[in-house]
């Protein structure tokens, strides 16, 4: 048995090499979902590539809303009427709350573009994601999952990636309360809520996001951004921290929080 495992490992490596040279990567992206923030987009050679999988991990269970809002805003920023298909399980309504259209409208997004799909369990979620991803014409497909997602192994991920590539749809995986694991995603992000730029009378300001690029197939990872959303211009911009309040953030390292969440 011991000897036979060596050739097996060798074969696996060969398959991995073949897959890496002749798989998803070799295909050029058809475009990008841009954030509107020049430095962010340049660093990613244009933004989040269309026809790929992008994973968004909430840095903490409480950051679920930030991760969801970031993914939705990036997708809804793109002009046009193409729908945003959002798949979630029924218990998500209880855990992170219902998706609230008046809130999306106030962020400048168009809630009429949302097509909500609710499934009973993660198995059905994955099956429906496979269908949704193969349907060209959506602005993006958001698949929201909570906790470990054992069904989404490398095979399932690869199937999704191939479907997305062939149909030219973008899959934004929302992984809430989960620890990053190896996957076929093009980029992997950790998203947390950032302190906002205070308004007059110390009122909370525009939505702010702390982003960390955990992995990127096209280049180096590890970059951090602090962006906030400007709904008038429909774009992200650098958060201007006012000098008076500098509650230096919350640069939460993924590892420690990931461990706590698991």
């Amino acid at each position, binding site marked *: 048995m011991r000897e036979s495992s060596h050739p097996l490992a060798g074969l696996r490596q060969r398959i991995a090499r073949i897959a890496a040279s002749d798989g998803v990567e070799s295909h050029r992206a058809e475009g990008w979902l841009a954030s509107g923030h020049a430095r962010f987009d340049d660093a990613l050679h244009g933004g989040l590539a269309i026809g790929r999988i992008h994973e968004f991990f909430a840095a903490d269970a*409480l*950051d*679920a*809303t*930030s991760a*969801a*809002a*970031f993914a*939705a*805003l990036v997708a809804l920023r793109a002009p046009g009427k*193409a*729908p945003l*298909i959002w798949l979630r399980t029924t218990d998500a309504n209880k855990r*992170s*709350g*219902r*998706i*609230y*259209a*008046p*809130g*999306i*409208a*106030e*962020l400048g997004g*168009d*809630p*009429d573009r*949302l*097509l*909500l*799909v*609710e*499934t*009973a369990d993660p198995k*059905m979620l994955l099956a*429906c994601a496979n*269908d*949704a991803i193969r*349907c*060209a*014409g959506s602005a993006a497909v958001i698949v929201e999952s909570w906790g470990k997602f054992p069904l989404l192994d490398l095979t399932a991920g690869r199937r999704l990636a191939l479907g997305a590539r062939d149909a030219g749809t973008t899959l934004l995986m929302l992984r809430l309360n989960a620890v990053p694991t190896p996957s076929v995603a093009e980029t992997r992000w950790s998203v*947390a*809520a950032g*302190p*906002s730029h*205070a308004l007059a009378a*110390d*009122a*909370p*300001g*525009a*939505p*702010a996001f*702390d982003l960390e690029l955990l992995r990127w197939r096209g280049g180096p990872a590890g970059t951090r951004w602090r962006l906030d959303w400007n*709904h*008038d211009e429909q774009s992200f911009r650098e958060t201007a921290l006012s000098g008076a309040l500098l*509650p230096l*953030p*919350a640069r939460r390292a993924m590892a420690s929080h990931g461990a706590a969440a698991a």
Partner: protein
Amino acid sequence: MRLASVDAAALAVGLRPGMPLADARAQLGELMIVPHDPVLDQDWLDRLAQGCARYTPLVALDAPDGLILDIAGAAHLLGGEAGVVADIEGRFARLGMTLRHALGPTADAARALARYQARPAPDETSAIRRLPVAALELEAEETTALVRAGLKTIGDLAGRPMANLAARFGADAAMALRRIMGDAPSPLDPRVPPPPVVAERRFAEPLGSTAHAAKILAELVGEAIGDLAERGKGGRSFRATFFRSDGLARDIAIETGHPTRDAGLVMRLFAERLDGLADPLDPGFGFDMIRLAVPRIETLGASQLGLEGGAVKEAAIDELADRLATRLGRGRVRRLRPADTHIPEQAQLELPAIDAPAPLPWQAPEPGEPPTRPFHLFDPPQPIEVIAEVPDGPPHRFRWRRQAHAVRRYEGPERIAAEWWRRRDNGGLTRDYYRVEDAQGRRFWLFRHGLYDEKPDPRWYIHGVFA
């Protein structure tokens, strides 16, 4: 406890419906008793009615134990009225059901004949005239009064002026009489309204395999779509009924969000539905008839594909929504629509995508202002523990899901009163909403349920989370 109904063997030994159970037991030691379940009875009657749709599309329930079939123009398919009756009796016998039937010129006449005919008569008219006055189904005293007056049959009554009957027993009695006599129309209330487009196929030999049945269904879909195309219509819902040779039937229905004449799409939806059935389609002893009905049709012009392909993409999304709704249930694929209210949890409607109305404008954002409504909303709101510096002031710190949050910034209160004009009790308490940001930079939407002069110790809730 009383007997609700008895079978033929029990009738023969003298048991009657309505008899106390103890008496029945005293009369006959070995009784087989099944508790009366009116809901199950209704359900069974409905299934029998569904099976009878093979004879005519117009089948009405006559609860609790009757079915009325309008076989006008449909009887020749089985060799006339006698053929229909023989076929029904044969199938019901196989299900262990005995039945009493009658044929009549109108629904009410047939019903009265089936339920009240005691003696055979040479022809239809005299059979109706010989019916007892009980067939009018008046109150017990009124029936007795009629009998005492010597008016024992419908024929006796029919010979007298209608006005006298109406004056003595009410307009309903006169109407019932006219209906039974066929002088007034007795409209049928069919269980399922007859669909505008139907295609069906009968088989000499029952089909034993579901796969073969699916093939026949595809042919029927083709026929129905040809019919729709001639009329310039498209189908919004399709219903396939598989009639089993034992007399029962099974309905499989699909819906689409837009009128369609795409046979491939309809068949894909049917395949999706057939795959997802909790209890699969069971041919039993075989299907001897398959019917495809298109109950809901809408105008659909001939379409031409746009050059730029936009319509194709939209159609693909619509098909995806239809397919997912077929698989998951129509209520699980939704679109969001605004509702005209300021109560936050009622301000959005989640409607099935299949028949969501046209979009309405949403509240536009204030330029330069952060959003005042959260991205995620908890419905119902979740209770939290709050410490405020002053009783009716903003929250200072709060505890939610076993985690403490210190409030760094806040804005509020935004006071949202209950809709006092809708309800007599003023609709409930006023809510004071605060937009708060905690030390980590997370933004929450909290409210105090009730002002201090409305309620001694108002509770706090978290209603949403901002991006």
